[in-house]
């Protein structure tokens, strides 16, 4: 494992070293230290490497990740793993707003809580949150799965498309066009698998499923039959 201290290097230098691994893999395991919560750490990775980030990270940590496994040993700022395409990002702490925003694939695991707009506009990512999520989570969620082991704040799944949401605790309110749905066998199975991938020992039987009522998919025309 190669350790890089941001006391000695800039974010630009560190990210360039990690990006260079996509062209020539020289080191499969990296550790980043002394970064003082800087932004855009380990973003734009495109190689099956492992990156451990010691301590709290700033905004957009592991943004647009592809293939890589990024572990953050602390909390993260806004937009962790935003637009992730593949790979795995694991936050061993809490996450700020817009965790996993617009992400297309991969797995985002948050051991603690995630703030507002977790999974906003998610496009295929799987997000598993050990704690609770804030308001407007999964807003306009298009695809993927959001699993919340704690509670969900106001307007969960507002304007939802096809993302599937699982919540163990309470839901403060459902957003427009989001409804509770029946848990069928395939849902128990995928929930069990997601919890196992995240390393959480929650019982799938304690969860409820939410999804789109699909009533907002087309503009409603109240045709008054005028001539």
């Amino acid at each position, binding site marked *: 494992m190669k350790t890089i201290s941001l006391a000695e290097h800039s974010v630009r230098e560190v990210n360039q070293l990690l990006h260079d691994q996509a062209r020539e893999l020289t080191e499969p395991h990296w550790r980043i230290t002394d970064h003082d919560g800087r932004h855009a750490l380990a973003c*734009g990775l495109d190689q099956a490497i492992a990156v451990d980030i010691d301590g709290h990270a700033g905004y957009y940590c592991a943004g647009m990740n592809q293939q890589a496994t990024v572990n953050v040993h602390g909390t993260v700022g*806004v937009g962790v793993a935003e637009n992730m395409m593949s790979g795995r990002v694991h936050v061993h702490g809490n996450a700020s707003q817009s965790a996993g925003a*617009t992400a297309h694939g991969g797995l985002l695991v948050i051991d603690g809580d995630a703030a507002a707009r977790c999974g906003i506009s998610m*496009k295929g990512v799987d997000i598993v949150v050990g704690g609770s999520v804030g308001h407007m989570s999964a807003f306009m969620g298009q695809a993927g799965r959001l699993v919340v082991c704690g509670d969900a704040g106001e307007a969960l799944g507002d304007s939802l498309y096809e993302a599937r949401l699982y919540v163990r605790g309470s839901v403060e309110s459902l957003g427009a066009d989001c409804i509770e749905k029946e848990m069928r066998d395939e849902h128990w199975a995928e929930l069990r698998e997601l919890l196992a991938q995240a390393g959480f020992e929650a019982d799938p039987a304690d969860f409820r499923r939410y999804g789109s009522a699909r009533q907002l998919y087309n503009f409603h025309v109240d045709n008054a039959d005028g*001539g």
Partner: protein
Amino acid sequence: MDDHTDNWGLRESATFDRNSIREIQRAADTGIYDIRGFGAKRKVPHFDDLVFLGASMSRYPLEGYRERCGTDVVLGDRFASKPLHLDIPVTIAGMSFGSLSANAKEALGRGASAVGTSTTTGDGGMTDEERGQSRTLVYQYLPSRYGMNPKHLRMADAIEVVLGQGAKPGGGGMLMGQKISDRVAEMRTLPKGVDQRSACRHPDWTGPDDLAIKIEELREITDWEKPVFIKIGASRTYFDVKLAVKAGADVVVLDGMQGGTAATQEVFIEHVGIPTLAAIPQAVQALQEMDMHRKVQLIVSGGIRNGADVAKAIALGADAVSIGTAALIALGCNHPRWEEDYKRIGSAAGFYDDYHAGQDPAGISTQDPELAARLDPELAGRRLANYLRVITLEAQTIARACGKSHVHNLEPEDLVALDMEAAAMARVPLAGTGWIPGQGGV
């Protein structure tokens, strides 16, 4: 006016004119607001209200055909290691695959590349057709992030963070279900046939301080190679431009209310935003006060139709202009050859604006395979290239007449206004006077 109405017994109301009456009837019939394409159709002060002061005794003109008059422009050399070098100061504005057919996107790329300028993706991602045919391609980063991925980010030549659009500042995009084909649905991760409503605000930043960090991330992902544009719809332009520069923009793209759209509510198009003419001086003032004029480049769009418009925008302080509606018309939109087809769908050549409906006879704003096949991308690309050459020559003609060896040497001092509104908005004197109305405010 028809013969039977051409008398005082059938006097038309100036307030309840035929368009207003028809819209009330349409609203009563359908119960839903009108959605259409194109841009604002109302008359607003525009470049037509300005004229150039050609050279005479006090200015020395350049010979109109032979003497050099440069048109090249560099965009994005503030922070990016690979700024854009374009041969002409006219770029192609962002228009999505989805709103436009794949053939239309390819044709835009072909036309732009033939004359050494750039084209731009749109809401929905990058297609192989446009990347393949575009020498210089700007990749839009929109609130919806439809189709956004790091591979295309790296394949792009520049990144345009879209905050707004002149046709609808404050609003998100629309793509009606009839245009959500299998391919469009897959690119946008949407169910086929839904009436897609794009987000109006970005999902992971909420203000200029956050945007600065977002731009830092985009630069990190692309190794600080790509110029980062920020596109704004013209509204509070002076402040928006200052904040865009503060957030780290290499280039500001300013889209006035005449700018086109593929699908927006009529009430939005006509009643939100300010005219292009009013917005440019605000943007230039903001850049000058920050000592960033010509350092952060300004691209102006919204109603650019000819070389005179190009020259006037540049004279007012733009570095380049961008065209959307005019480019589609050059490809073949609203062409009389499709007159019978336009009539069949209740429109006419020269008036067609139902881009959202997906029935475009010219095969441009459609996803219908049979209609899309009507547009030959090579031929349409040549038409666009011809048009771009013409408006560049026109801009050069004016610049030479004003004694300028480069179009960027045009300046506000070369312009006067024909009426007080235009003089006040453009901040140039009323023709024949030294009077600039309204000076003293932002």
